[in-house]
């Protein structure tokens, strides 16, 4: 196997793997972002409740 053969195989494999990864991450990432924003919003809500316990009690 020459260096050119080796780099050609590596390039083709990389292109194929990356195409699959791009599709999977694009779909999965969308749901992850939704979850992350919900978590952060919840954290912010909790922090506000902790900061104003009296208002919360009312």
């Amino acid at each position, binding site marked *: 196997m020459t260096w050119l053969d080796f*780099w050609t195989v590596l390039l083709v494999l*990389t292109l194929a793997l990356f195409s699959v*990864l791009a599709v999977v991450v694009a779909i999965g990432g969308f749901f992850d972002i939704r979850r992350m924003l919900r*978590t952060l919003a919840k954290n912010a809500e909790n922090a506000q409740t902790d900061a104003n316990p009296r208002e919360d009690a009312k």
Partner: protein
Amino acid sequence: MLNLESNFTWLDWGIVAVYLSVTVMIGIYVNRYIGNMADYVVAGRSLGTFIAVATMTGTELGLVTVMYAAQKGFTGGFAAFHIGLAAGVVSLIVGLTEFIVVPLRRMRVMTIPEFYGKRFGNGVRVYGALLLAGAGILNMGMFLKAGAIFVTALTGLNDPFYVQIVMTVLIVLVLVYTILGGMVSVVITDYIQFIVLSFGMLLACWFAVKRLGWDAITETVSSVHGHAGFSPLDGEGFGPSYIVWMLFVAGLVSCAVWQTAVMRSCAAENEQVVRRMYVWSSIGFLVRFLLPQFLGICALAYFWQTSEGRAVMFTPEGLPIDDAELTMAALPLFLSQVLPVGLIGVIGAGMLAAFMSTHDSYLLCWASVLVEDVAGPLSGGRLSTKARLVLARLFIFLIGMFLLVWSLWYPLEQDLWDYMAVTGAIYFIGATALLVCGIYWQRASRAGAYLALTSGLLAVLGLDPIKNAVGLDRLEALLGFNLSEAHVGLFATATAMVLMVVGSLLLPDRCPSELPTQETAT
């Protein structure tokens, strides 16, 4: 510079304008989710696997990466692929073995100097943070220039004055939404950029091969670079010492020691996400070098085949011209010729978003290091959350101003990638010794840490202007061979490890702290 008619039209400018406006609006919108410093710096440690992979790849596959990797493909041929291979393989090994990154996540640190503090005390933390931030800011010193060269070459704005205008506009845009949104906006824009750039790059590769033909590409590399264009072991090109240097820099450092990558593992939900992120991101680490390098090789073939391109880009002997700014412009010039209207706008916008995403990650990173690891410890931990956020935003602004001045002033005399490896080495040479020994060797001491961090400064000898100023050429004449960045970097790395071990053995700590590998998993 070549005066080529670009395919970039008003439609493409429209695409870029819409894309960038949406990105900035997202940065402003997500400001409402920032409640404390952990939200701002590591997105509240709430990243899932897919978004972690997207943001890791998004940050690392930026416009600057594309520019320096393409330049390496242009000046080194297929042999440059060894850099991507090293990056991918080492990142996979890190993911499988949990080397460095999982213990760091276990310690719940936000920055590497915070680890120094927990392991070696506050003095090492502050000293290490100053070295890290200094090296990191210098490392991104050429980002603006690379971004501006890309924009002007892609769009056909040939007047050098436009480069300065574009640099100023870019830094203002980046500062606005990084200051406002922090890591949450970084994560979301990384995700958008990941999608646009991934598919854009794949399409660009297809257009390039379709236009040039595979045989013409390989024949050009053979004509211009000879055997060294294919074999990285050939001393006429990269050579064995450069490969070892790349295994260290593009491999281990990029994924496990460089602060921006480590921040992603620290932002992950749990240790399992860290492992998965590194295993999956190994493809991203491979791609970030390989695809742009391939496009750089295509640019080489394109200009070799056109008479005007050959006259400007090559010496009469047929070698790529020794002008870093011109070889950096080869990829955008090539893309401006082969991509169709519309797609060139999408790729241009994706690249600019990539530029902004890399910039915001780095700005956020260095500013948070200065706040958390310098200002925080020096104030005795008395800084309020509000004060820390204000200070982080102030540092981001000041770093942005420095970058603008540095980009205009510093004469880039070597490949951009080599400049970045050397400036980054000021930090990562010492950091590697501290991380490896600090995590895995109980006897690593504070004295050893100080010595190892200081020896990282030796790396500046790899910068061409410094090398010329201190007269390293006389040493080269004495040794009988050229002292490359790789030689200097490897020497400094070995020195740091030796000093860490010797310093620790001779001057041990009275009360050694517990190793993070011994702590309970969270």
